[in-house]
């Protein structure tokens, strides 16, 4: 079973905060981490490899530093990594990104399954999975919380839907986007880290992949950001001062009033 796991490098959660004086964003220099949902996707793929044999390739589009995260994926059970890195890819929205990723998928060779995290914690759009599947013209199942049954021909999964869950069956190849709780990512061992440091990670640029320049990067992005700003605050709040005991007395009265 050959699977490809798409991973995104995201800022570690605290990285972006607003400078209290200039009201602009300041980074605190922390390194990028793997999107937690993608870490679960990787663990799912490695689990599949352990059960059915095969190979796991991790794929990412990002700056050169992202190689570090692909090597970390190798240390956790992936076999090879492909990094799509080129200034030409920068500024991509989800449509351009999914096209670029599809080039990486082609580069990886044949596959039965593509696994993605359901969404990235910095973007939250959850669009890459369905859009990549659309480019590859394979079916897509989102919000998978459990893989119930898997053979080299088809997969049966449980997924979250509005108001509950659904069990469904799809023939391979398929693209699945997974919930973070689908499994717990393992930590690498010392042996795994040795492999991660020296294992095969290929870095590919736009021309090597024969990318259509009109479909990648900022040029290939139908959407663009025209403004970023801090959310406005509502001004009419009523403070409740005092000791915890005093505050609690007031709160008790308020709560009773409102819940009447």
């Amino acid at each position, binding site marked *: 079973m050959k699977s490809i796991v798409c991973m995104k490098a995201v800022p*570690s959660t*605290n990285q972006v905060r607003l400078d209290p004086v200039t009201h602009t964003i300041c980074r605190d220099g922390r*390194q990028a*981490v793997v999107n*937690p949902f993608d*870490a679960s996707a990787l663990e799912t793929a490695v689990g599949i490899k352990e059960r059915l044999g095969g190979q796991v390739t991790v794929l990412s589009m990002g700056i050169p530093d992202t190689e570090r995260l692909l090597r*970390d994926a190798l240390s956790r059970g992936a076999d090879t990594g492909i990094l799509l890195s080129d200034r030409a890819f920068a500024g991509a929205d989800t449509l351009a990104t999914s096209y670029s990723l599809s080039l990486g998928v082609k580069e990886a060779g044949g596959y039965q399954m593509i696994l993605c995290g359901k969404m990235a914690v910095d973007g939250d759009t959850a669009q890459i999975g369905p859009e990549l599947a659309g480019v590859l013209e394979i079916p897509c199942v989102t919000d998978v919380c459990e893989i119930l049954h898997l053979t080299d021909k088809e997969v049966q999964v449980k997924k979250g839907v509005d108001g509950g869950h659904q069990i469904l069956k799809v023939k391979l190849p398929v693209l699945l986007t997974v919930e973070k709780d689908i499994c*717990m990512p*393992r*930590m*690498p*061992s*010392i*042996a*795994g*880290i*040795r492999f991660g*440091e020296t294992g095969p990670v290929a870095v590919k640029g736009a021309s090597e992949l024969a990318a259509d320049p009109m479909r990648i990067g900022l040029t290939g992005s139908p959407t663009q950001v025209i403004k970023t700003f801090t959310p406005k605050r509502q001004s009419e709040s009523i403070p409740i001062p005092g000791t915890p005991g005093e505050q609690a007395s007031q709160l008790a009265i308020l709560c009773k009033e409102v819940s009447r």
Partner: protein
Amino acid sequence: MTKVRAFTSEFDEYRKDESRSVGQAESISFPENEEDVCHILKQLYKDKIPITLQGGRTGLAAAAVPGGGHVMNLSKMNQILGLRCNGGRYYIRVQPGVVLSALQKGIESKRLDTAAWTEEEQKVYEAFCQEPEHFFPTDPTETSACLGGMAACNASGARSYYYGAMRSHVTGLRVALSDGSMLCLRRGENFAKGRKMRLTKEEGGEICLELPLYQMPHTKNASGYYVCDDMDAIDLFIGSDGTLGVLTELELELLPLPAVIWGISCFFRKEKDAIAFTKKVRKEIGQAAAIEFFDEGAIEILRRQKARSTAFSSLLDVDAWVDCCIYVELHCESQAEALDTLYRLGEILEAAGGKETETWVARNANDREQQQFFRHAVPESTNMLIDERKKIDSVITKLGADMSVPDEYLDEVVEMYRRSLKEYDLESATWGHIGNNHLHVNILPRDGEDYRKGKELYAIWAKAVTKMGGAVSAEHGVGKLKRAFLEVMYGRKHMIEMARLKRQLDPYFILGRGNLFPSTILEEGEGKEK
């Protein structure tokens, strides 16, 4: 206006601390600053009312549990007062009620409330914010502890293996004595001559102290007063269990955070291999900031509790063949150094009987958090088990040893623990700072009989550990619960010396009565003198 309040049932929870012992008191106060403290001390001094000091009440030795009299709870003195820079090092001034986790968060996120600081200190703060990250290295598992209490019992944590206990990081203290007079102590300014020490009160007047003559063990130690020839005066008050004065302000040294911190959990099939590994790591890996141990008993409880409680459902699974685990934390200057050290650690591991594949290496914040959760789940799940057993027989409480021995006795002390536990047929779980030969051997009584046997065994251990040149309390402090062990360690003569020392600073035995030694110790010992 008096801040001394009657001890009504509203204050019930202030009758106990984490040791689960319960006391009683007649009055209580929550001073908000040094002035309040002195005012209350002076007021109560008139009638010689005994005072028990409290911070976060997270102590395990009942030092904060009152035996009548007044409770002075310092948790409202929770301000971070200022920052000083000297020679590139930063020193932070705090009130004793500042909670460790709040301090850690404030320093690491560089978000401190400096509104009340002086202009000079605010400038230092601005410079501090531009610096790379800093941290406070004393890391007891219970981060809701107050800094005053941590200083009072000379607390330590996993990282004290490398960085030392609380003592190493206290550079200044303001101490209020039982009569309300103040001492201001700075490290490096006042040294004893031999065993004679001079202290100058801020209001004027000197105190000449005759220090006890015992020799402290050369191990991690939080048992009794710190005394040695030509000692720094500040050290007398650190680890004094709230018996010599009220710490109204502390100055703490901050350290630059290492660029790279990695945690490695190594799993072993045999305890012997884990110990051999510890000794080798101690010798050869200078970058080890902590070396911690969990035994089979501890891991078994984790497995059991994970199966039963959703609180632990996100805990990583430990394979069935695992007997014990050693956790090594590496602090390095660079990724390259860390990687190199990791590989060396792996080689040492294989040589000791472990396997490089049977390790968890946490290199990023997420994994470290997972690993931390795992490590903290060990004492937590044990406490849950004891609470369950307590429901069946209320006399049951956790019996946790806190003893340390010198390096060369590691094998011997472990062998002794194992042999005697088997002999006494007691269930146990052991974990702790194996790097300092300081293991918390927790006996888990199944009934009242087990509890009795356990206490007996602890007394036996206290004697054996003393003989090996170790300490009966390595980090929890003596408080009231370990008084008997302190006596085993030092003998009655030296205990009386300690009490005499206390009398010089606190003539009416007002502060922390019952901590370290019974309050009647001098009457008994000096009956004839009177």
